[in-house]
Each structure stands twice: as C-alpha cells, then as structure tokens.
C-alpha cells in the first residue's frame, strides 16, 4: 500500500468536483478551471485558460456589479446577494451563485482567487416565479372588496390588503407588518371605531377582550359587529395548521340593513295582526252582547205576555230599548274610530291654544255645571290635521271633566312644552285617577274601567281614538303613572310632520 499522497487527493477532488471551480490571478485572468467549469461554460481548456474573468459574465453591467460587490465584501453565503448572470460560450446564460476564497501570501498580498460557481438557474427561476405569484396574489388581494390579513402565531401582522386598511378605520394608516392584533384593536377602539366599545363606555374593555378571545380561539363561526359610520361587518378568524391566523372582514351593511328593515316590518305586521285580533274580538264582544240581550228580552216579553205579567213586560221592554241604544252607540263609536286613517293626508300649522279654547267653549256648559276650574298654560304649535287634533284635545279634556272626584272641586290643567324635535301636551286633573295596572289597557278599543255606565258613561272609545290620532301624527300618548293626584295624560307630537315614512 502506497503512502497517503495529499497532492494526488486534492488533484482528484479538483478534477471531480461537481461545481465549476475557476482560479483567477491578481490581474483577474483565468489561470485554472476544473472539468466541471469547462463543461458548464462550454470551452476547451486552451480557449478558457488565460482569458480575463469578464469573459464569463453576461455583460459589463453584471461584471461591474460583481466588482462592486467584491469591493463591498458582500455576504457571499447568501444566494440573493451573490448571484450573477453568467454566459456560456454558445451565448446561453445561467444564474450562478458565486463563492470565492482569496489566496494571500505572507505579506498579505492577494495572489489568486478561487471561485466556485454553482448553477442556480432552477432556483432563480423558482424564486422569480414565486415573486410573480406573490405579486399576483397581492394584486388580487388588493382589489378584493373583503378585508384580508394574516397574523403569525405571535399575533403579529404578516400580510394584509387594501380593504383591510380601510376596515381598520383610524388604525388603518398605522398598519405595518409586525403590529399585533391587540394593538390594532386598541388603536381603532380609542378613536371610537366600535360603537359597542366607545372610549367612554364602561365596558369597552370587556368588549375588546371578547373580540380578542374570538381572535385567539376562534370557534369557526362568523360574527357580525357594528363599526363606526353605521357599518356592519362580518368578522371571521381562522386558525391555520401552521399556527397563523387568517382574518376576513366582509362589509355586510346592506344585508344587515335589509335584515333589520325586514325584522322591523315583521314586528310591525305582528303588532298590526295582534291589534286586528284584539279589534275583532272586542268588536264582536261589544256588538254581540246587546244583540244577545235584545233577543233575550224579546223572548222574555213573549213569555211574560203569555203569563200575563204586565209589570215584567214593561221592564223587559225598557231593557230591550236600552240594549238597542247601546248597540247603536257601539256602532257609532266604531264608525268614528274606523274613519280615522292611520296616516293623515292633510296637514297644516295648528295652534294648540286655539284648539283648547274651542274645546272649552264646546264643553263650556258641561264644565260650568260641574264647576270645573281650568288652568291653561302656554301651548305649542304643531303641524297636523286640525280636526283630528281638536278631537284628541276634546277627548282628553272631556275625560278630565267626566272622571272628576265627587269630593273635591275639579281642576283641569293643560300645559305644553318642547322637548327636542318634539312637543308635549299634558292634560291633567285632580279626579278619581286611573289604576296604574291599566296604564296601557285603557288605550285599547272598548276598554272601560268602570262598570256603572250611568255614572261614567261611554263606550270605551275615547282613549283608543286619542291614541290612534296621536299615532297618525307619528306621535304617542301615555298615562303618567307617577302622577297620583288624578290622571295625567302626556301626548307627544313631532314639531313637523314627516311627509314620508
């Protein structure tokens, strides 16, 4: 066995090394090239050795870049900073990652430079393709109307599109890779981006914690949140297998508005249906009762005539007549009520003071008889149907006089005041008052609280009518249950009629 010949080993390594190796002298003349280099560049040794290094670079620019990089001692370990375009003898080009090792003499003088050029064409092509794909994706993401972003496992922003910037509102301009999801949330929250978590709301922290919780442990269900400017967004957070979080934000304002409108209509319809049910039930009850009585009393008259009970006959006849009268009153009330449309068609400026003055003169005789003291304050002007408003006022004042207390001198007070865009008309008395339990029921059709029709007459239409009139003016009426001296009704009307609903 021969002794280990180092020189032979290195020569063999040089000859068989798979990557091209080229050795330049101090004047940058090619002094040596291994077979891989000759094969890669397509030269015979004689045509390659002795040529300047410029030969293998694609053009002057590329060669000069190499020289500049060498002077700047760029990091050659990284393909990105040390890859050049080389040219073969046949003119074809390839990307090569160049790594060099200088040979220095004892005085520090550079004698030669060993360069290894690895063909990275495939890699470079892949990188280029990746870059193109990435650019394409970015472009696609940017034109997407949906907000899109990816956060890494440490909740730092990695990628985001233009829509996401818009959706982040005040935090949008401050977005940059590396910012955390919590920082974005807090930045937007401080600027009032979330109506459910305004800076002065007491539980904004709980709300932010809730949003973060959904980001950290998403339950894979989209949620809809309200954003500033009355926008609604569908928020979806998705954890990916590699620990990143993909967030999607879709503006669903139009959908949400349609949904809300639909819900409002549904409720309105339900309300109307209930009212209709109530209406038919009450009407049938109040019309059927006197009708039944008429039938009963006529039959009784027949029986009593046969039996010769003259006294009973006249009593039954009186009841029969009363029942007929009562039925007549119910029908009149009903016609009255149904004539008032839910929406008034003619409106003008109405001075409530004039209406109250008219009412007092109409009810004057009755009021004088009862010795009623009126206290009328300053009253507002509104827009509405003067005839309907007159009936509203007349009903309320009429009730105040009717339900007076037997033991005290009746006082009726009428006052008005403006509250924002609305005006309030307050009618109060010191009468017998109304049990707060019936504060809403009194406004239903044919609801009466008093059995004794002879003391407190009426069919139970007055307040139902008042309510319908108030509502036809986009207003409302309620009983102030805090007022205990008597009854106090508050009518709220808008200052100006909205012409469309």
């Amino acid at each position, binding site marked *: 066995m021969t002794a280990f010949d180092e020189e032979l080993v290195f020569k063999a390594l040089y000859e068989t090394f798979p990557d091209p190796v080229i050795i330049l002298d101090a004047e940058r003349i090619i002094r040596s090239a291994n077979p891989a280099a000759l094969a890669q560049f397509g030269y015979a040794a004689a045509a390659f050795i002795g040529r300047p290094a410029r030969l293998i670079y694609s053009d002057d620019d590329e060669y000069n870049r190499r020289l500049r990089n060498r002077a700047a001692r760029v990091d050659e370990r990284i393909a990105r900073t040390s890859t050049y375009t080389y040219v073969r003898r046949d003119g074809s080009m390839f990307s090569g990652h160049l790594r060099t090792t200088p040979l220095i003499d004892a005085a520090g003088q550079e004698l030669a430079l060993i360069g290894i050029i690895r063909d990275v064409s495939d890699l470079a092509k892949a990188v280029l393709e990746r870059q193109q794909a990435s650019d394409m994706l970015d472009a696609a993401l940017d034109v997407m109307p949906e907000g899109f972003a990816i956060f890494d496992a440490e909740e730092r922003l990695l990628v985001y599109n233009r829509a996401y910037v818009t959706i982040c509102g005040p935090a949008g301009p401050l977005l940059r890779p590396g910012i955390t999801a919590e920082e974005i949330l807090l930045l937007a929250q401080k600027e009032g981006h979330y109506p459910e978590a305004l800076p002065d709301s007491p539980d904004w922290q709980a709300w932010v914690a809730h949003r973060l919780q959904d980001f950290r442990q998403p339950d894979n269900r989209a949620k809809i949140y309200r954003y500033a400017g009355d926008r609604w967004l569908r928020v979806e957070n998705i954890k990916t297998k590699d620990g990143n979080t993909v967030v999607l934000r879709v503006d669903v304002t139009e959908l949400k508005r349609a949904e809300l409108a639909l819900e409002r209509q549904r409720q309105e319809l339900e309300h109307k249906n209930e009212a209709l*049910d109530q209406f038919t*039930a*009450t009407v*049938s*009850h109040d019309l*059927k*009762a006197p*009708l*039944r*009585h008429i*039938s*009963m009393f006529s*039959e*009784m008259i027949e*029986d009593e005539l046969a039996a010769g009970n003259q006294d009973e006959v006249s009593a039954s006849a009186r*009841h029969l007549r009363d*029942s007929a009268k009562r039925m007549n009153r119910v029908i009149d009330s009903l016609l009255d009520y149904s004539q008032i449309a839910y929406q008034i068609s003619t409106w003008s400026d109405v001075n409530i003071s004039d209406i109250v003055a008219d009412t007092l003169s109409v009810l004057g005789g009755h009021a004088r008889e009862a010795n009623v003291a009126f206290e009328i304050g300053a009253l507002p002007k509104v827009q509405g149907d003067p005839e309907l408003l007159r009936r509203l006022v007349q009903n309320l004042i009429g009730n105040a006089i009717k339900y007076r207390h037997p033991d005290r001198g009746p006082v009726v007070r009428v006052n008005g005041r403006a509250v924002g865009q609305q005006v309030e008309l307050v009618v109060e008395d010191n009468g017998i008052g109304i*049990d707060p*339990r*019936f504060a809403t029921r009194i406004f239903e059709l044919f*609801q*009466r*609280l*008093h*059995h004794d029709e002879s003391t407190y007459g009426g069919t*139970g239409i007055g307040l139902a009518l008042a309510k319908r009139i108030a509502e036809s003016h986009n207003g409302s009426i309620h009983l102030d249950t805090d007022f205990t001296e008597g009854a106090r009704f508050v009518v709220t009307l808008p200052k100006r009629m909205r012409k469309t609903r």
Partner: protein
Amino acid sequence: MAKSPKRLLVVDDNVHDARFVTRALSQIDDTLDIVHVIHADEAVARLEHDHFDYVLLDIKMPGVDGMELLERIRTNEGTSVVPVIVLTSSTSPSDVFRSYKAGANAYAAKPSSLSGYRQFAEAFVRFWIDNTLPPRGVVLHQ
C-alpha cells in the same frame, strides 16, 4: 238523597247576563245559593272570606279581566281546586284555549235564548252538582 246547598259565585260585569243565568239556574235547582259580583277585585275579596263550590266566570270585563282572575284563583291555595266554569260571549278558539290553559274546568258561550240558558243550567246541575265525579286532575278535600 237530600242535597246539601251548594254555593256558586257568578262573576260578570253585565247585570243582564248575570240575571239570565241566575234565573235559569234557580229554576233548575232552587237550593243553589248564588252570589253575583260585577268586578274581579270584588270576587277576590269574596273568595278570600267565603267558601264557594263553583265559580261561573265571564272573561271580558273592565279592569282586571276574567283571565287574570282565573290565574289568581288557581295560584291561591284556598281556591286552587275550585271548579271554574267560563261563561262568556266569545266563541273564539284562542279564548277557549287560553281559558283552559289558565285552568278553567269548562267553557261555554253565553246563550242568546231562554231555552239556551235552560239547557246550560240543566247541564251545569247534572254535571257539577248531581254528579260527584271530580274533574280530571282535581283532588277533592272533603
């Protein structure tokens, strides 16, 4: 068999209707002790102090209506098993349903003829007075 006098509370705001039913019942069974009140609150007061074997109840009344009164009767320990017969002008299925749901033992529409009242009175006496079978789910304490 000698009948022990039974007590019936009629709750109806309408005096005519109360008179019709009282008359018809008395004609069928003159031992029946009938008390008429026109107001639910009054009925509550009477039920608190007096014993009644049955309540005849109108559901459409001013103020506290019969449905509320029925619920009150059922939740009050002393009256929770008193048979309540709803006698009302309404024939609407929702009123029938609501009445039974609130704990009514029977439901009848107010008749509009003397013979109708007579039939109601006969049926009432036959079922509720002559027949000692308690209504389903009711335990009699006697």
